[in-house]
């Protein structure tokens, strides 16, 4: 199994033109240290430049067309994302420290080679779900055009294919989600089988006892516990995939503590939750907090929610925010942040409306 893994990772490395830099993929899945401090570096700016703003090239000077709508990272630190008003999937290559166009280029629905495949694109008020396998071979994106088709980007073969509609599919929602292990899983909330695809494993689940209100905005999976975390711009929910039971784990908006403040998980309420991701070993759930705030880290071990922000001692990390300081120590107006995504080697990646950041662990921590 280990040999197979090595072969796979070698294949991923060969897909890029130069060897991967320091921080190559690791198979050990650890959560980031609780009090880790980070240095933040901008990889991609959003200057709201619109159509000419899609500038590839060296990280730190590249531009997005508009808001980054969703992002995910493979274990080697290669970041993949979608943007408003641009029917392409773009990426950051850790080996060359460059931003590139991965797939797409023009609006439409057409499968085929990644250079010519067409995507419907992503708009401000629609959700983009994107996940890449830990080994960097398989990428899935929910295309907003049409009726929300799941598109599979085979990064190994360089092809794009259409899998099916994400809702009203085989009697339920068609969920494709990355597990803490880095594997991609797929299932239908009705309990029926997901379609065949070499990029994911099919998960057998019990039919859900309560349907999502209108849409899943974001979700994250811990397959060892058979738990799906999700939200639809409200509180964080979980579904036990063995029983189909749906539970609410944070407070509804207007209930619990003041919005945008941290404390216990059950009392946490969001102003406008956006992205969601889970830490490599499953202890932390990260929830993007929209409209001028931050990103929350739900710590299932301590049952505590903390917010991302600047630290008094320097650097960035997870901290309490209360009524008085909720708007300070943040990295500027964050607008529509995605969730931070951490990879097993400890690095993290975070997209806000201003930029895509890389988070590098600082020595010493807190």
């Amino acid at each position, binding site marked *: 199994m280990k040999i197979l893994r090595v072969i796979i990772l070698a294949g991923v490395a060969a897909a890029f033109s130069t060897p991967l830099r320091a921080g190559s993929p690791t198979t050990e899945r650890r959560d980031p240290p609780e009090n880790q401090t980070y240095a933040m570096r901008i990889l991609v700016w959003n200057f*709201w430049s619109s159509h000419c703003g899609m500038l590839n090239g060296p990280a730190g000077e590249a531009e997005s067309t508009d808001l980054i709508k969703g992002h995910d990272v493979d274990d080697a630190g290669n970041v993949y994302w979608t943007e408003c008003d641009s029917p392409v999937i773009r990426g950051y290559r850790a080996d060359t420290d460059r931003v590139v166009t991965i797939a797409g280029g023009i*609006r439409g629905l057409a499968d085929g080679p990644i250079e*010519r495949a067409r995507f419907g694109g992503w708009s401000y008020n629609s959700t983009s779900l994107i996940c890449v396998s830990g080994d960097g071979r398989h990428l899935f994106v929910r295309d907003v055009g*049409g*009726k929300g088709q799941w598109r599979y980007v085979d990064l190994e073969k360089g092809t794009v294919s259409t899998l099916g509609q994400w809702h009203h599919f085989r009697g339920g929602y068609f969920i494709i989600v990355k597990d803490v292990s880095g594997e991609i899983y797929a299932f239908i909330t009705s309990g029926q089988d997901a379609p065949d695809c070499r990029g994911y494993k099919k998960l057998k689940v019990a039919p859900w006892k309560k349907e999502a209100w209108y849409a899943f905005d974001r979700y994250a999976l811990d397959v060892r516990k058979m738990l799906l975390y999700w939200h639809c711009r409200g509180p964080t929910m979980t579904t036990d995939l063995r029983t189909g039971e749906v539970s609410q784990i944070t407070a509804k908006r207007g209930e619990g503590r003041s919005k945008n403040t941290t404390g216990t998980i059950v009392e946490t309420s969001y102003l406008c939750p956006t992205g969601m991701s889970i830490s490599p070993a499953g202890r932390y759930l990260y929830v993007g907090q929209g409209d001028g705030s931050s990103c929350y880290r739900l710590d299932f071990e301590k049952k505590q929610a903390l917010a991302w922000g600047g630290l008094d001692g320097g650097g960035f990390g997870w901290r309490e925010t209360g009524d008085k300081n909720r708007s300070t120590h943040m990295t500027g107006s964050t607008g529509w942040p995605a969730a931070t995504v951490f990879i097993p080697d400890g690095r993290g990646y975070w997209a806000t409306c201003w930029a895509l950041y890389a988070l590098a662990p600082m020595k010493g921590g807190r």
Partner: protein
Amino acid sequence: MMRILMIALVTVFASAVPARGEDLSKEILLSPHEKTEARRPAAAHGKDVFLIVWQTDRNEKADIVGLRLDGSGKPIDAEPFVICAEKDAQERPKVAFGGGVFLVVWHDLRGEKDWDVYAARVSPEGKVLDPEGIAVAKAERNQCEADVAWDGRVFQVLWRGFQGEKDGSPGVGKLPAAGYHVYGGRVSTTGQVLDRAGVSMAKPTGTQRSSRSLGMAAAVGLPNGELLAGARSGGTLCLWRVRDGRPVSEPKPAGKRTGFDDVAFTTNGKTVLAVWTTFRDGGGRSSGVSKSGMLVLGADGEVGTAAPVSLSTTIINQGRTHVRHPSPAWDGNRYVVAWDSPMRPRGKDTFHYEALFMRSFAEDGTPQGDDVPVVSDPDSPAWRPAAASDGAGMTVIAYERHPKMTNLPIRIGVRTLK
């Protein structure tokens, strides 16, 4: 024989799109360069030759190639010729004609560290006079997204240059002060770079994030020997004049929220036409639809009392008019503007596709008819038009034509207008 066969082959691909009210030719698909994808065409006319240049492929495989058309719009070259195929990426070409040569500019990653601006002269006979390229701007950090105009004596190249903190960790509660400014440099017809260090042309002035970085600049030569230059600042088109390679006026906004990007100019010597993209979907404070898209100025390039007006009449895409990537030309009698716009097919799925339109205007901006579809095919979309005219009634519109079958490469389509 082979050459005749190749020319015959590229001319048989005719578009089924009917022209309404304009004498548009059938479509010609230009030969690809070694089966590569063809992207981002640019066009210019000089000495009875139209030179179409484009980018092959993308990322590190991107190169710059060109192909000539004769005065009637027929290919002179059976296959594209290489203008620059240095190591790493060469992208986003633009071209202008003056002093007997074409000057092609692009941004280049051959230095591996960041984008630099390069140029090459191409003779009307199709000879690349600077096969290794001329380094126009090679300073630290990105110099990118160049455009070029002829001022009557030399070529003026404009580009975006990155300024400010690049890699620094943002401060608590703020972002690093960084963004793109506009710079310029002149290149003579003999290939000499006259402003080696680059000249600061325009800086962002706004306090909002959206106006702290300028968009891509463009310029056009005025009859008095000056150039009119423009770029997006925030959601507004800003204009300034340039003489002898130096800005001679401060950037002035041409109205409020007049445009978002892709500004382009043309002139007939009596008036100047400016066009721009009218739509962005940023949501909230950054989104917007401008109902304008064009501005007609006097020959001196002064904004004065000129007000932006609507470029397109077509109400498309859920009642909103989207003009993107507009490209203007003066054909001797009228201004011709081509652009692309996302369309939604009726009775099919709800995926948008890109279609190409054009419209004509008198020199004072009076429309001469409605929008005319140039290419509108949901299965084989087209976008990023580049218009060029000979000033004697012939206009060429070149564009990316995406294939019906994605096992075929993206090619450059051409339709001519008399």
